[in-house]
């Protein structure tokens, strides 16, 4: 009971604001009843979203698990709709997180290489600064031609988008490592690999947090961009398909799913990084002026 009360004391206002936003949406849907095509309201109210729209997502279930697909002649069902949401979300997320992981590792590695030695800097820095300037979405078709429209192409594209951000973030953060920490470690006998693992990586992490959050956003953009252009599954695929038939309500549901997934991944990352940063003097500080 007290926990419930504490929860509402902390989050009550935020919950009310969310409720108000949902209500405004509902009011707008009643005020503007324009339809994109007959039967497809421009602003779908919640009563539409949670019934007709939800069940229509069965279209994207490809069958299996004892639940037949609509294409096989089965009627739309909530079970099929839920499976459609889960399987398409999973497809997108695997592409996303695998790309994020590969891009993060490669970007960090190349970013660190800039400070490793004169030769590694000369090798890495200029080409990467050049690659950085290429606009990400313009590269989608190129990646599809290089890596194919299937799994590898999308993962590579996300990895590219994320890697470029990590590279820039790491290069900058390394420049800000206080010299006294490096000197201290060297006088205690640390070799170069130890310097990177025990001094440079931990001391750039606080600054890198912003980079990682930024790259999470970019990764979502990149994976959807890749899915718009030629995918057979995934949330981006649902959006493209819906657009073709002006299914605004379905696009709205997918957008809600994005918000949901993104919020969860931000929350998890925040938790994790606060744990890793418990050494920092003012970690988790919330600034309130007045």
């Amino acid at each position, binding site marked *: 009971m007290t926990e419930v009360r504490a929860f509402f004391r902390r989050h009550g206002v935020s919950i009310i604001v969310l409720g108000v936003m949902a209500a405004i949406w509902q009011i707008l849907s009643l005020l503007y009843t324009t339809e994109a095509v007959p039967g497809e309201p421009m602003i779908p109210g919640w009563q539409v979203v949670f019934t007709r729209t939800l069940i229509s997502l069965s279209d994207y279930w490809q069958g299996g698990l004892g639940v037949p697909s609509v294409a096989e002649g089965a009627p739309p069902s909530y079970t099929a709709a839920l499976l459609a949401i889960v399987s398409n979300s999973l497809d997108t997320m695997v592409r996303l997180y695998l790309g994020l992981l590969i891009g993060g590792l490669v970007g960090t590695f190349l970013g660190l290489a800039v400070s490793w030695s004169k030769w590694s800097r000369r090798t890495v820095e200029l080409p990467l600064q050049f690659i950085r300037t290429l606009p990400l979405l313009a590269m989608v078709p190129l990646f599809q031609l290089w890596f194919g429209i299937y799994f590898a192409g999308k993962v590579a594209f996300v990895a590219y988008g994320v890697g470029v951000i990590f590279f820039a973030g790491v290069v900058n953060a390394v420049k800000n490592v*206080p010299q*006294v*920490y490096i*000197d*201290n*470690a*060297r*006088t*205690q*006998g*640390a*070799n170069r690999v*130890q310097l990177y693992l*025990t*001094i440079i990586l*931990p*001391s750039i*992490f606080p600054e890198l947090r912003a980079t990682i959050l930024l790259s999470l956003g970019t990764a979502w953009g990149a994976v959807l961009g890749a899915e718009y252009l030629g995918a057979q599954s995934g949330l981006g695929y649902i959006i493209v398909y819906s657009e073709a038939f002006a299914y605004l309500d379905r696009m709205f549901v997918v957008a809600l799913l994005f918000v949901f997934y993104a919020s969860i991944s931000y929350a998890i990352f925040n938790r994790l990084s606060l744990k890793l940063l*418990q*050494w*920092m*003097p003012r970690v988790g500080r919330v600034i309130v002026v007045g």
Partner: protein
Amino acid sequence: MRLENGIAIKASQLSQSFRRADGQLVDALSSVNFEVLKGQFVCLIGPSGCGKTTLLQIIAGLLLPSSGILEVGNQVVTRPSPERGMVFQKDSVFPWMRVINNVEYGLACRGVGSGERRAIAEHYLERVGLAHVARAWPRELSGGMLKRVAVATVFANGASVLLLDEPFGALDYVTKRHLHNVLLTLWAETGRNKPRTVLFVTHDVDEALILADRILVFHTGRIVDDLALVAPRPRTTDTLLMPQMVQNKHLLLAHLGLETKQAGTGATSSIVRAAND
């Protein structure tokens, strides 16, 4: 008496110049020559900007001199080594490691087993009076405690040359006096087989007189005086009142520009300009 066989540190014609951002060339050290015997406790004193930190960095192997040679234990210094430990002027305790992990860091880098290095680290934390905060984060410690962590670390590493750059400069009087005792005890107890040579930078005259076997006075990148202090240890407030100590104090104050030498008498008059201006 300590065993003083052999030379620990030898600087020959050591010079260091820096090019500042405005293009001007600054001579931080100009043809410095000195020798320090093994086991000696040497204080370097001089106004700020006279090249003390630069000299310690060269001895640590963090900076290559523009010209001249620096030898430690008959070897020319070209890179850092755990044989030469340093307590930095700036805070250098790693904030992302707990106190105990800071103290055992160097040992871990050199592959000392976890049980052994933990025992060594705990021993020295105990000696500096910080056993109770071994598991704390550095952010939870005061400035004086952080300096004690740095001292424990440098001793845990077992260096034979200790370079301390104004380690207690920013501390209150009581903490400072306490740490002097800790430092002197640790320095003295290493025995005859492995004497520890200390170079201690300070701008505090009393601190130098309490600690040093010998005081090197720096001014604008040069050694301008070299005083031997033969007063017995442990030194107390009374030691500082011995005629020889008082005389040395006047000399040092004069070097720092706080007193002027009076002609004829050899004594000095206390003008203490800084206090009156």
